[in-house]
């Protein structure tokens, strides 16, 4: 019972982190129709910039400045890269971001080398907030929850209460109409791209110290972000939130409880073969839930796409 | 003799809004039937229902007596119904010749054939060339369809629509956005290529409608208020009142 509570908190942290990435991605997708493969790379840049800044100015300045730099870079990529490729169609756009992701990874290795960076949790937050049955919850995790929730509320406020937000929301559903109403859609695109990547940057800044700051960090997270927004429904902010939390909890619980395939198979009436080690099916019998925890989201996505192609909350067909 | 196309009690709602509100209509073999009506009357929706682009909410559509419920567009096409689109809908990257050849493939029995070369079939090549001749695009044969002029693209669209040999042809505003001379050209073309076929068309241009159609149905707010020969419809007071009057006045 205590462990369930701990897992709920852990899953929440994972889910909210995922949400910060997927929120920007889903905004970018729904406005511009671009599946930005380089999104996780901006997350990585956020972590590296914050690390570099924290060496000179400390963690908090890193948290402030790094996302700004990432956002400006993102806007630059939109202005000078994507906008040019846009005229060729969606597939070249997607492939452009794919190439960009490779390039950013190479660039990071070029500048910072290939080793893990010693980017640490700031001392102020390096203590145990509270413990549940011997499981300590680090204060930094509470801080991560706080930041993510603050960003979600801020995003919701901007989208629903401000003029810019109204235009963006309108552009989510009716991109062409908004354009014909005389709004500077390219500028909005650039802005949304910048803000989306800056959000990814924030995620990188706060995740870097706990999940590690290394050149492979974008690749590890890369495709799972797509999975999230596809499950949630492309273009839906709420969908992104629900899917992020869903994935956070599903993977956390699957890892925490050793549900063995042999138990499931026994439960539905198959009996374990006697000489398991010789059986052709031995690998199936020995599968446990932690082994497959990280591929569960992919299974979920494929199933959702087959039965509900527009995702949980999506309005438009993907 | 069964009607070529028969609609009975056809309804379609989008959310709470009912766009088609109970249409009953029978179109006979080899009839040239025009559906007219003011903007927003549901003409294109009706077209899309018949061709399986949307499922109907209730009612029946029968092609040569066979119910089309639940049939996908390609199945309906194979039963002998072919359509054109209001917005030009061709294969812009392929050549004009290939556009037509593609539309011949199914009806010539090639189906999902992956063992014979299309260029080796004289029947295909000759068939496509004949159609090009009919629609006067032989000179444009090897150009990508996307670079043709608007009128030429419309002509190609009609060519694609009739190429498969369907006996029920549905044209959605074939002369929309054309100049006078272009319209005359297309009307002649339609008359020529729909010889001995059933033609159903939606059209705004009254000149085209009265020049081409044997029968006219007037669709207003999702209901057919009148069906009949052109002169009867023109004389119908309900039509005059609802729609035709102003349209005719505007034309004079």
């Amino acid at each position, binding site marked *: 019972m205590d462990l369930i509570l701990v897992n709920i908190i852990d899953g929440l942290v994972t889910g909210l982190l995922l949400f910060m990435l997927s929120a920007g991605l889903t905004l970018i997708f729904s406005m511009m129709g671009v599946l930005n493969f380089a999104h996780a790379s901006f997350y990585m840049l956020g972590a590296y910039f914050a690390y570099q800044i924290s060496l000179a100015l400390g963690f908090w300045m890193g948290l402030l400045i790094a996302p700004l730099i990432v956002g400006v870079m993102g806007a630059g990529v939109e202005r000078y*890269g994507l906008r*040019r*490729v846009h005229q060729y169609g969606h*597939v070249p756009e997607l*492939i*452009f971001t*794919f*190439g*960009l992701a*490779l*390039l950013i990874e*190479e660039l990071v290795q*070029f500048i910072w*080398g290939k080793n893990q960076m010693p980017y640490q949790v700031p001392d102020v937050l390096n203590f145990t907030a509270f413990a549940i049955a011997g499981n300590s919850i680090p204060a930094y995790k509470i801080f991560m929850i706080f930041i993510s929730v603050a960003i979600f509320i801020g995003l919701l406020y901007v989208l629903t209460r401000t003029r810019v937000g109204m235009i963006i929301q309108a552009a989510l559903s009716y991109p062409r109409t908004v354009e014909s109403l005389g709004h500077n859609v390219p500028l909005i695109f650039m802005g949304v791209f910048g803000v989306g990547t800056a959000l990814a940057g924030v995620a990188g800044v706060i995740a870097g110290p706990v999940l590690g700051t290394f050149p492979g960090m974008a690749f590890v997270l890369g*495709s799972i972000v797509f999975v999230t927004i*596809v499950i949630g429904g492309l273009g839906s902010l709420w969908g992104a939130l629900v899917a992020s939390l869903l994935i956070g909890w599903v993977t956390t619980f699957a890892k925490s409880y050793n549900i063995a395939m042999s138990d499931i198979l026994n439960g539905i009436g198959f009996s374990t073969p006697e000489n398991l080690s010789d059986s*052709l099916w*031995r*690998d*199936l019998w020995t599968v446990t839930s932690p*082994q*497959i925890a990280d*591929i569960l989201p*992919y299974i979920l996505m*494929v199933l959702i*796409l087959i039965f509900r*192609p527009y995702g949980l909350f999506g309005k438009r*067909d*993907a | 003799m069964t009607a070529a196309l028969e609609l009975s009690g056809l309804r379609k709602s989008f959310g709470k809004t009912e766009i088609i509100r109970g249409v009953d209509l029978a179109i006979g073999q080899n009839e040239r039937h025009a559906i007219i009506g003011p903007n927003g009357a549901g003409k294109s929706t009706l077209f899309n229902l018949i061709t399986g*682009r949307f499922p109907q909410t209730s009612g029946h559509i029968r092609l040569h007596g066979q119910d089309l419920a639940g049939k*996908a*567009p*390609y199945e309906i*096409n194979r039963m002998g119904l*072919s*359509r054109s*689109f209001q917005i030009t*809908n*061709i*294969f*812009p990257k*392929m050549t004009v*010749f290939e556009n037509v050849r*593609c*539309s011949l*493939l199914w009806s010539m029995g*090639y189906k*999902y*054939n*992956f063992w014979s*070369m*299309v*260029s*080796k079939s004289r029947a295909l*090549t000759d068939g496509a*060339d004949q159609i090009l001749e009919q629609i006067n695009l*032989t000179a444009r*044969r*090897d150009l990508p369809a996307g670079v043709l002029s608007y009128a030429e693209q419309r002509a190609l669209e009609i060519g*694609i629509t009739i190429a498969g040999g369907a006996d029920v042809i549905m044209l959605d505003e074939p002369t929309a956005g054309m100049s006078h001379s272009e319209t005359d050209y297309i009307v002649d073309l339609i008359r020529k290529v729909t010889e001995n076929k059933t033609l159903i068309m939606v059209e705004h241009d009254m000149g085209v409608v009265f020049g081409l159609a044997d029968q006219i149905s007037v669709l207003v707010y999702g209901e057919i208020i009148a069906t009949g020969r052109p002169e009867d419809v023109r004389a119908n007071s309900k039509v005059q009142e609802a729609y035709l009057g102003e349209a005719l006045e505007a034309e004079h």
Partner: protein
Amino acid sequence: MSEQDQITTDPTKPAQRMRAGSMTISATPWIIAAVLLIAMPYLFPSRSALTIMNQMSITIVFALAYNMLLGQGGMLSFGHAVYMGVGGFVAVHVMNLISDTGAPFPMPFLPIVGGLFGMGLAMIVGSFSTRSAGTVFAMISLGVGELIAACSVIIVVFFGGEEGVSGYRDEGLPFFGFDFAQQIEVYYLIAAWLMISALLMYLYSRTPIGRMANAVRDNPERAEFLGYSARWVRYYSFAASGFFAGIAGGLFAINYEILTEENLNTASSGVILLVTFLGGVGFFFGPIIGAIAFTLLQTVLSLHTELWAFYAGVLFVATVMFFPGGLAGLIMMHVPVFQIGKAKQLVLPYFKTLIPGAVAVLGVSALVEMTFHYRHAATGDNEMTVFWTTFDSHAILPWVIALVVTFGALYLTRLNAPSLREAWAEANTPDGGAA
């Protein structure tokens, strides 16, 4: 048969003249390719050259298969390595079966086994993924790719875990006396399969279903109203692509005698997308160029610099940004110029712009290498070699020289670019106004 066409159609019609012409030249590239493939080992007899050429050939088959989806069918797959991989794994298992049982099975037919299993898997996955093209297809392909790749370490019985599955290619039934122990024999086996598969894939694109694949790519709705189910057309393309990907897998099994997790993972799927796009999806021969260029980058450039992936990334992004038609598109841009007969006019402007341009590119890469060396090389190890010149990367002079050369070349390039642009426009205008 083509002669008959010519007799019955009217040769005075310009369009038919063109088509008749294209029929007669179409066999030439195939003959040249075959002759080249036969001659290649005489030019480059070393085993490593053979190995690299084998790798190229396998990549070409795979890239062509991939382009059946992307270029001809308009389907973007992020998990296509799976079909090649599974075909390859089955091929290795069959190879082992041959070794164990001594079954009389000649190795040259092994790729067919791979192809059939690749196709079988594609038929299963395609049954639910080809319902639409676009994002849904792309995401299902990503998901399925990840799933099967993850299975490769979990289902050890079939995929052999991280170590993979290996076998011996020389224990099959000798084929006309060849047992395929030597690289050169394997080279000709793979070359033969390359010719067969490329030809089959080319012919496939000329069949009714191949033509309809293009039609569905451009306008699925219109295709439906022509009697074709867009879904079934996609399904056929997908299955055919799976078949040829499986053939490539079988060839991989013969060449390397081992298949591992890397044959299935998403990185391999990404690479084939890069290869195909780099070569150009719009032309049948595009992926061939892409496969050759990428193999050279990966295998040969990486012998010379650690930064090969960086250069590959730059090349790739630049291609997408400036030449969306890929390398093949770049080549085909020149066809009209040759047809008009003004190609000669381009030689001098090209010379004047591209030479400084090339120097500038090399200069920039030298600067990149020097920066990298300056930052990452061992202390005291100041000596470095770029373009066969050895110097001290910590001294000023080499930097000054590199900078001056680079910027000078850049300046010259910019200076001459407008005249190239003019010459290009001029060369593309036929004499006597519009065509």
